[in-house]
């Protein structure tokens, strides 16, 4: 090397060894990394939001087809605990990179609990909009082509899971304060109810789809993560106990109930 021009030439030649990657790979990789970062932040106690909807099931759902093995959770389902109130995770799926919506079709022999999840940052980005307040974002659950639930993708929500025969009550739950923010009646009832409502009978395929929307229109939000899971054997509902304006979710009534180890629904 004799001078800086020589150095410039050599640096240029050395840099030419770099293989070129398509822009789409960079963008897809960026999305993936952003989502991983969000997830890590959330599981680490961040202020992401979760929405959990437990559609009712029988007290102890039985597996009619004993030969079938539980389907391994799909890729990217790390947000769902292995056990939830005594139930075991059968299968789960979260949106993958580039997915603004997804659907599943499952053949169920028994009613099961359906858990819906969504998290988004306070100021979300979307490809169609420059900025998006988390409050505007909704996650939509459809069962057999019918809209079953539309909920804000914000804060942490636990939805109660009552025994068969009781009307299901949604219990939005603020994870930070353990205080109920509001109460709302669900249009998804216990197992027999939602089965009839959405035209499902045991043994028939059940289609579930999940998407994000804003003001009634589907929207793609790369930072948002949403998913759905099937739980088998969920035994008890978390019960909201109110006293003096504060609320908590009660412990399960049997010894082996409750969320699985390591899972804390609160951010």
């Amino acid at each position, binding site marked *: 090397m004799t001078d800086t021009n020589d150095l410039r030439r050599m640096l240029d030649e050395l840099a030419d060894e770099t293989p070129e990657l398509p822009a789409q790979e*960079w963008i897809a990789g960026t999305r993936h990394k952003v989502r991983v970062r969000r997830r890590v932040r959330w599981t680490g106690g961040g202020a992401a939001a979760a929405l959990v909807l437990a559609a009712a099931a029988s007290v102890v759902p039985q597996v009619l087809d004993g030969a079938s093995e539980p389907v391994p959770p799909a890729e990217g389902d790390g947000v769902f605990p292995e056990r939830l109130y005594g139930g075991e995770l059968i299968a789960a799926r979260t949106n993958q990179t580039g997915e603004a919506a997804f659907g599943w079709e499952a053949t169920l022999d028994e009613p099961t609990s359906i858990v819906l999840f969504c998290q988004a940052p306070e100021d979300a980005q979307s490809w169609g909009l420059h900025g998006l307040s988390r409050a505007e974002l909704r996650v939509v659950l459809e069962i057999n082509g019918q809209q079953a639930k539309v909920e804000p993708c914000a804060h942490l929500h636990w939805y109660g899971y009552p025994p068969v025969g009781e009307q299901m009550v949604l219990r939005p739950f603020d994870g930070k304060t353990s205080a109920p923010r509001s109460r709302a009646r669900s249009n998804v009832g216990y197992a027999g109810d939602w089965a009839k409502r959405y035209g499902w009978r045991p043994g028939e395929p059940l289609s579930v789809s999940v998407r994000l929307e804003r003001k009634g229109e589907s929207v793609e939000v790369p930072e948002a993560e949403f998913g759905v899971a099937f739980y088998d054997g969920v035994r008890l509902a978390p019960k909201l106990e109110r006293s003096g304006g504060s609320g908590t979710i009660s412990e399960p009534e049997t010894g082996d109930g409750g969320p699985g180890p390591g899972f804390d629904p609160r951010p």
Partner: protein
Amino acid sequence: MYRDAGVRPMAAVIPLDALLEWPVRSRGTAADSEGRRVEQPSFEDFVVARSRQLQRTAYLLTRDHQLAQDLVQTTYAKVWPAWTRIRDDPEAYVRRVMLNTYTSWWRRKWRGETPTEELPDDGQAGGQGQIEDRAGLMAALGRLPARQRAVVVLRYFDDLSEAETARVLNCTAGNVKSQASRALAKLRVDPALLDSGRERGTSA
């Protein structure tokens, strides 16, 4: 619970084709630090236009193709959520984030670096002299402290001015000048570069 394979993907609500098409939209205008309206590229436009150069810079800093890709990807993941808030020059901002990331990796020793004496034969085209130049420079860069290496790359590869380099590295222009001077002094006497220069001089 499931009769067969259990859960099967079904048609997405939004057509797959639409999902595969990444909407590349113009970011429109944004106000610069003095309130003027300036055209800003979208993130996608920026990635298309600048990834190659950023990757080349990252390779010179890390001296490893995989680390270089990881460095650029990590940088994108950091800047993307804030993209709409970036004012003035996005490239300077991205470059600064990348250098900060590189520095933090180096400080944490996540990417323990060892000077490279020889490069494997990658089968790329080029005369013997060029290959030796590259191998010599790679080894010499590896012997520079990370800060000096960054100054060399920014000043003599990215052709940034001392002031621009100082902004990226968050230091003074004087500091850039002194770091560059020290780095050049080391490179001039580095055995790997002395050898290649001597051979090139002989063969010329």
